[in-house]
């Protein structure tokens, strides 16, 4: 049936017209043959509507007039043949009146049909405009035959560069894995030829002719995929680097170990104080406790010593080092952390900076540590003001100076010096070891690390490194 209709639609307007005329003739003859036994005037609507729909309003009206002429002639001839008593419209006036009514009815039909056709066309146009305007490639396929019933421009451009698309397998062959004809499915597919990733959704729906068909929509997610991949790689790199960074790890181990002697010392001291206060004490006993306490203090000292040795154990490999390169490496590593905290990183690197004798990895760790602190200090800063500036320059003393400036909460004046003390921290979950160890690293390089308050918001950390003299 659908094939027949399709066949018809391919034929010319003349064919429709001829078909209309034939129908009209058949009805007119039938009308004549049945005389007054049946009123067949309603049947004329069939050719009129057909032609009106297929060829437009004008043709429809012309056909209405033709049909009326046929009807009227019929009645006229019949009225000559039969006696008046047999006639439905024995006089000329009612016959004319009936003719007028018929014509009006038919023309109304033609006009309404025409309006309907225009409205439908508009609806279709809107639908197509939306689909063509989509970023997504969309096609509709008959799952039984694999025939493509519809595809939008995006789809044609994406998958049909070589040949016109008529079958869904032409598209599916380009994708790995191919989007199957399963009902309601989503997934990702890779088009190897174009090196692009697509997210596809398959929906089943009822096509205009009642068939169950599948609508498949593709979104290009290559950029997102790449970003994810990049992010994953960076995270991996960051993790590897943080393995290198013993600073944080060391600090937490240290905190664990230090707790034991510290708690013991506190207990011995408190026990002594309580006994003395109560006046219930024995000198020998107190003495023993105090000696044990000082032994614990020595134990704590040994733990600190071990940490220092650990720092030293990583014998710095002092080589000629491009400090700008080190800064850029470090900046790359903190980028994700910065982005997550809405912090912009600004690099102001001096051109033609002389090389320094330094262990690049260690300096990178110091920069990372300071920068991480800086980012954390900006938690309370409004996001648009969060800025981390890393500057490199040759200072007046002839040393390379790296300045790491934030717009964070800053260091209170009274604590500017204390922030380098072990266990100093302004962070609720901090250990206060990082800066102390960073300073040790800088001193190992015959450099310095100190902090200043900014005139505006935040604070600046300064690292200096002596320049290599050839």
């Amino acid at each position, binding site marked *: 049936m659908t094939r027949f209709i399709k066949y018809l639609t391919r034929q010319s307007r003349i064919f429709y017209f001829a078909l209309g005329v034939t129908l009209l003739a058949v009805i007119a003859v039938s009308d004549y043959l049945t005389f007054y036994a049946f009123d067949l005037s309603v049947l004329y609507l069939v050719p009129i509507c057909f032609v009106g729909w297929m060829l437009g309003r004008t043709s429809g009206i012309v056909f209405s007039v033709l049909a009326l002429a046929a009807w009227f002639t019929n009645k006229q001839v019949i009225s000559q043949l039969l006696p008046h008593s047999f006639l439905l419209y024995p006089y000329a006036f009612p016959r004319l009146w009936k003719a007028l009514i018929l014509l009006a009815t038919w023309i109304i039909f033609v006009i309404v049909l025409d309006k309907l056709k225009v409205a439908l066309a508009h609806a279709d146009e809107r639908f197509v405009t939306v689909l063509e305007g989509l970023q997504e490639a969309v096609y509709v396929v008959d799952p039984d035959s694999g025939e493509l019933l519809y595809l939008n421009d995006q789809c044609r451009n994406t998958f049909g560069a070589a040949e016109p698309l008529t079958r869904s397998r032409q598209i599916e062959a380009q994708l790995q894995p191919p989007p199957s004809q399963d009902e309601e499915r989503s997934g990702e597919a890779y088009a190897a030829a174009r090196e692009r990733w697509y997210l596809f959704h398959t929906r089943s729906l009822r096509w205009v002719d009642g068939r169950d068909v599948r609508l498949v929509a593709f979104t290009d997610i290559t950029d997102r995929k790449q970003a994810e991949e990049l992010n994953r790689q960076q995270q991996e790199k960051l993790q590897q680097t943080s393995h290198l960074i013993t600073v944080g790890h060391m600090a*937490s181990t240290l905190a664990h170990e230090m707790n034991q002697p510290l708690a013991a010392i506190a207990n011995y001291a408190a026990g002594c104080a309580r006994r003395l206060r109560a006046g219930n004490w024995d000198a020998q006993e107190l003495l023993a406790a105090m000696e044990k*306490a000082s032994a614990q203090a020595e134990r704590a000292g040994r733990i600190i010593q071990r940490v220092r040795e650990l720092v030293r154990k990583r014998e710095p490999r002092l080589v000629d080092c491009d400090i700008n390169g080190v800064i850029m490496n470090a900046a790359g590593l903190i980028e994700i952390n910065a982005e997550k905290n809405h912090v912009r990183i600004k690099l102001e690197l001096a051109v033609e900076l002389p090389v320094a004798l330094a262990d690049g990895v260690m300096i990178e760790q110091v920069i990372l540590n300071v920068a991480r602190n800086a980012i954390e200090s900006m938690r309370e800063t409004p996001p648009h003001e969060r800025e981390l500036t890393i500057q490199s320059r040759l200072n007046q003393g002839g040393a390379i100076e790296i300045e790491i400036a934030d717009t964070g909460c800053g260091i209170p004046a009274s604590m500017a010096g204390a922030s380098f003390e072990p266990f100093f921290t302004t962070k609720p979950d901090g250990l206060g070891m990082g800066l102390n160890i960073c300073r040790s690293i800088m001193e190992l390089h015959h450099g310095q690390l100190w902090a200043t308050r900014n005139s505006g918001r935040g604070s600046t950390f300064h690292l200096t490194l002596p320049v290599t003299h050839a």
Partner: protein
Amino acid sequence: MTGPGTPLVYVVDDDAALRDSLRWLLESAGHRVAACAGAEAFLATYAADQGGCLLLDIRMPGMSGLELQDELKRRGLAIPVIFITGHGDVPMAVNAVKKGAFEFIEKPFNAQALLVLIENALAIDAETRRRAARFERLTSREREVMELIVAGKRNQDIAAELSITIKTVEAHRSGVMRKLGADSIAALVKLVQNMDAPRRK
């Protein structure tokens, strides 16, 4: 002051210095202290009828503090436990408290705070034991009657259920009330509920 009846503070920590210093501190407050180097040693020495409390390191080689807590629960030993935690173990300790530990204290701790905690734990333990002792004094028949009273049964029903006369039920009932020191049914129900509830303040 010291004697078999007085409560014992058990200190279980793998660090010898911490154990010894805790003993020094706790003895200054007049507590009797038993120190154990590990969970296994504690389980070997602890007797259920000994009143006291347990000062327990959360991290230990071998059986950890948390595992010991589970083991105590499994054995039905209800000694109040105070966990000692190190840096970064707080979430673990909070969990332990949720599972019925009495309290936890972070290292290094304030001596006074620890002593207060221990006083409280000992008081709770003593109270629980006192209550338990009262229940011990009930005869098995009285216990049966008590359970039925608490379940909300009337004397007639209890008599029918236990196949005894109402008069006997009334006698048992007054025995229960007297021995447990309850002056009303409501007070009795509360006592029984407190026995069953986890021993936390």
